[in-house]
């Protein structure tokens, strides 16, 4: 396959960026999208030009590093697929492919296609955990977890923290990311004591970095792990409940 790439180049956080076009002939349909960039970079280096910077690591769809906006879609045209799992056979010979970094105010560009996603870590830091100091845990089977609850928590916990939801959102909102963590922990019995404190702290931190959710649903479509937008409903419900919940009574059986 012979392809033409239109790639965003930006030398640094404060530099002015621009698209550059590159011809990439002899592309194998079995290549992954990141291997296409490996080939492009080898050619650029051979011609004495700086290679395109892009984040990547595991190349099997689990680390959440890769982050390319491909033809205006986060992680490209396939559903449930991270950029590293996208293969060139999904494109046609002669295609012009436009590749940009994630675009969101909370994700400033560092260089070329690399953005700073540490705002997501700040949301987790604000409460995305269960306080369980090492050594203090009771036997693992002491607390029963209904299978349906464990499965639903796992569905939410599958989030890889890539930020595609934010990039796809017209508002640059991080609701799906935050909801996935709030739901993962809030659906489990172990997560109950901090359930309302957690959701309030995480949502408030989220809102200090990201835009607001207006229920476009683009996040769910872009998510490489197909995390359901239903979790945002759980997030919203818990956030509202947290406003009038008397947490002192949380130890009482209803």
């Amino acid at each position, binding site marked *: 396959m012979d392809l033409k790439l239109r790639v965003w180049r930006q030398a640094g956080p404060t530099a002015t960026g621009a698209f550059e076009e590159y011809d990439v002939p002899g592309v194998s349909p079995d290549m992954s999208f990141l291997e296409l960039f490996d080939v492009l970079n080898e050619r650029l280096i051979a011609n004495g030009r700086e290679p395109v910077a892009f984040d990547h690591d595991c190349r*099997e769809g689990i680390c959440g590093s890769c982050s390319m906006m491909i033809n205006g879609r986060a992680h490209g045209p396939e559903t449930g697929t991270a950029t590293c799992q996208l293969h060139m056979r999904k494109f046609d010979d002669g295609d012009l492919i436009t590749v940009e970094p994630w675009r969101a105010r909370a994700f400033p560009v560092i260089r070329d296609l690399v953005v700073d996603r540490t705002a997501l870590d700040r949301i987790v830091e604000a409460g995305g955990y269960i306080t369980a100091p090492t050594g203090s845990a009771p036997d693992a089977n002491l607390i029963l977890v209904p299978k349906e609850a464990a499965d639903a928590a796992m569905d939410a916990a599958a989030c890889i923290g890539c930020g595609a939801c934010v990039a796809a959102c017209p508002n640059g909102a991080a609701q799906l990311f935050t909801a996935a963590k709030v739901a993962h922990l809030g659906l489990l019995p172990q997560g109950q004591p901090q359930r309302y404190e957690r959701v309030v702290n995480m949502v408030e931190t989220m809102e200090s970095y990201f835009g607001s959710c207006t229920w476009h649903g683009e996040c769910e479509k872009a998510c490489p792990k197909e995390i359901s937008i239903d979790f945002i409903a759980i997030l919203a419900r818990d956030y509202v409940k947290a406003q009038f919940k008397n947490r002192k009574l949380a130890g009482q059986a209803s």
Partner: protein
Amino acid sequence: MIGSLDAHIPEGPIEEKWSHHRFDVKLVNPANKRRYEVIVVGSGLAGASAAASLGELGYHVTLFTFHDSPRRAHSIAAQGGINAAKNYRNDGDSVFRLFYDTVKGGDFRSREANVYRLAELSVNIIDQCVAQGVPFAREYGGLLDNRSFGGAQVSRTFYARGQTGQQLLLGAYQALMHQVSAGTVTLRDRTEMLDLVVKDGRVVGIVTRDLITGSVQSHAGHAVVLATGGYGNVFFLSTNAKASNVTAAWRAAKRGALFANPCYTQIHPTCIPRSDDFQSKLTLMSESLRNDGRVWVPAQAGDARPPDQIPESERDYFLERRYPAFGNLVPRDIASRAAKREVDAMRGVGPLENGVYLDLTDAIGRLGHDVIEERYGNLIEMYERITDEDPYKVPMRIYPAIHYTMGGLWVDYNLMSNLPGLYVLGEANFSDHGANRLGASALMQGLADGYFVLPATISDHLAPLLGQQLVAADDPAFREAETNVQEQSRRLMSINGSRSVDYFHRELGDLLWENCGMERSRQSLEKALSAIPALRDEFYADVKVLGEHESLNQSLEKAGRVADYLEFSELLCIDALHREESCGGHFRVEHQTEDGEALRDDDEFSYVAAWEFTGVGTPPELHQEALEFESVHLAQRSYA
């Protein structure tokens, strides 16, 4: 300079060593812990769990990761599960059985006391992770589910779908972020450790490069903890993540830390074969597929017919033929070598003739499409995504690939290296898996080291340092190391040759895979040992690294790592050449049984080979730690 290797194994019966030892170690008063600065490098299972646990204890910790977030570390990609001797299945499991299986699986080349402790702590890990909210698979009654795994006859593996590593890492990452918010841990992301600083025989800090600004900085600590993973990427193609590297461990080795058993490298039999010359990494397919898949090749060399046109009588189910008792379920190393033999004999399949079939047809016929989909649906989907072939219709193609490295920096029972103040955890150390690691044991070791072992042992080193000031960042020892790092960058960037860093990495990988991969011989190793220095010279004469030092420069990062591989690979081959036996992941063709199985030499090689760096291109010095087996009997591994 270095005395005989003393692992400081506590006295007493094996079941009591750890509890006695915890009583014997010196302690640091809770109010004094904040006066200590501990540097942790790496944020995978071992590093994140160690940093979080040390922070909870009250130490001040700084965690360095070259990733943009600690959650990206490659522990995240582990699929299968984590072993623990809970005996929830009532099937006869025990701490001793997990210990025994691990020592046997490691082909009797691990340190008994460490392995026993690992088995003991395995049960605490599961408790800890469940309390953190790790969503392990459950039974309908709400109790934890288990599955079985290779090398064991009990079901002791806990799992979270096919994403166990991800869920355990997120648990540790969340605990870590909690400590970041509490102020006990300072997080330094996109910061790579490039040198270890030793002063008066003691480790006093590290030198790092900020990957965004290029700034080279010194960081002082009372202890330095390396949890920087394995070196599988020295082979270029492996199941490791692209950035996984040996740099932190190797630079520590160049400062005097001993590197143990580098030749113990694990090959995983069920990976997707490479499809073209652009291939950048290999993807593992869970070994569980061998439970229902039959492995075969065409009986006739060069038979290029599609698989459905090759009649039964012209197929060779070579594992079933050679190992009738275990069949397709022989251990990883045996299955891998058998596949290689077929491909080498021109019976490989696929466009590049570089794989063997793993055929689910019979299982689909016996159990039905739905059962197979329920068991392996996610794997089949992953395979189809990568190869564009439907395993329900066309047999999958598999081939072995480098997966894990058992060797690593030498540590004593406290997980401290021979350099006082330097601790090494997880895959980066050498201690628990011997010559071969069993499935679902890597996650166990990383978390045992980080959650439980280091927090209990580090005070033994720290307590006597109470009130001792950190070495100042402008101390000559730090200055020398900073200069060293800057010189290396300048050197790499000034060559301006004609070939990219990846070119050299691929060349080195091919060379090692060919000569120091699944099978090694004196001849192949000698060949590699003459070719590596030549490739290293070529690298320093002809590599091309563009860009600047003072900005994000991924070529420069890679160049530094490949430069280290070009030195470390020599040690790997020297170790493989010196070990005149076959054991676990190290198979020397000269040492095999009549059936082609690994033949150990317990009289000569029942020791840990810990190598001291003496200079690039000069022979390293061998230190030995004798392995004594008091609780298990040495036996030849048999799976026939």
